[in-house]
């Protein structure tokens, strides 16, 4: 079971840890966040460009934090963005687990070792992300 801790920083910042089992998941999600932010910046009107640029920068920071660490991922940033990212990571983890279960449900043969291993990995990743989400939200409720 993953261990998640949350720290509240100054100026509305939040630091949280995501279990390493969810690292690939976090990277996938933040890659898409970055691509969307880049696309938004490329289309932004002049009065929206600054906001879009800051968003891209913040998401890029999170992506680096998720991709460049080994072990549990420490994610630090503006509270709303951290929670948004963790929610998306948890949601995607649950989706990936659901997709795998749907495939397995369609087969009659006993599950092979590979399938069991994959189930464990996806289950751990989803659980890790959900734990991080719960910890974040619990902390926000306390403050």
């Amino acid at each position, binding site marked *: 079971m993953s261990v998640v801790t949350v720290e509240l920083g100054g100026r509305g910042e939040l630091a949280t840890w995501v279990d390493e089992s969810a690292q690939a998941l976090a990277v996938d999600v933040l890659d898409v966040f970055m691509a*969307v932010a880049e696309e*938004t910046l490329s289309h*932004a009107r002049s009065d929206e460009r600054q906001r879009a640029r800051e968003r891209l920068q913040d998401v890029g920071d999170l992506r680096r934090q998720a991709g460049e660490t080994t072990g549990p991922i420490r994610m630090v940033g503006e509270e709303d963005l951290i929670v948004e990212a963790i929610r998306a990571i948890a949601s995607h983890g649950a989706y990936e687990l659901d997709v795998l279960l749907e495939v397995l449900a369609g087969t009659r043969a006993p599950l092979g070792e590979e399938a069991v291993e994959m189930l464990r990995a996806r289950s751990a990743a989803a659980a890790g992300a959900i734990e991080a989400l719960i910890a974040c939200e619990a902390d926000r409720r306390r403050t």
Partner: protein
Amino acid sequence: MRPTVAARRTNTSRVARSPLGLTAKSDAELLRLTRDRIDAEAFGEFYRRHQRALIQFLARQTCDRDLAQDLVAESFAIAFSKIDRFDPERGDGRPWLFGIARIAMLARLREGGVEHAARQRLDHPDVDDAAVLEAAEARIDSSTSHVVAGLERLSDRERDAVISRVLEEREYSDIARRERSSEVVVRQRVSRGLRKLARVVPREPR
């Protein structure tokens, strides 16, 4: 002599229907062919196969057809750029694509639609894509003045894409290179632009 829009449409349709036997291949094979740069048409087949279902999925999720169309373009563009991340051992191409689309949707909705809010909102009739494009192209052939007026209603990027593709007859790949964008995004801009034009250009008398 320049070919008519109708003639070009016929040629394009013929090519699209027989993309080198790609229709028989699985999604995973198409993505592998794309990743390994073996067949440039493979991703086009993957796009054709899932584009409509993805629009429907996103339109249901967002209740906003314009936003859904933006997201479809973004999702395919992201999938193309992240194709190395596709692992057939982890699942088929469709759930992989839809997973990307789900994340893009979450990100876009949270961003508050910076781009989307800036655009003029127009309701799209829920009709067959090919039929709309066909009707729009036919009307464009005969209703130049309305088209000029209609072009004013498009965003800059949509207008450029429609002019480049339909009037200047440039290839999608050529436009994408010039715009420093992907073919998928350009195709979506042309499609979206033609849909908008279709609503402002009057129908031909029967």
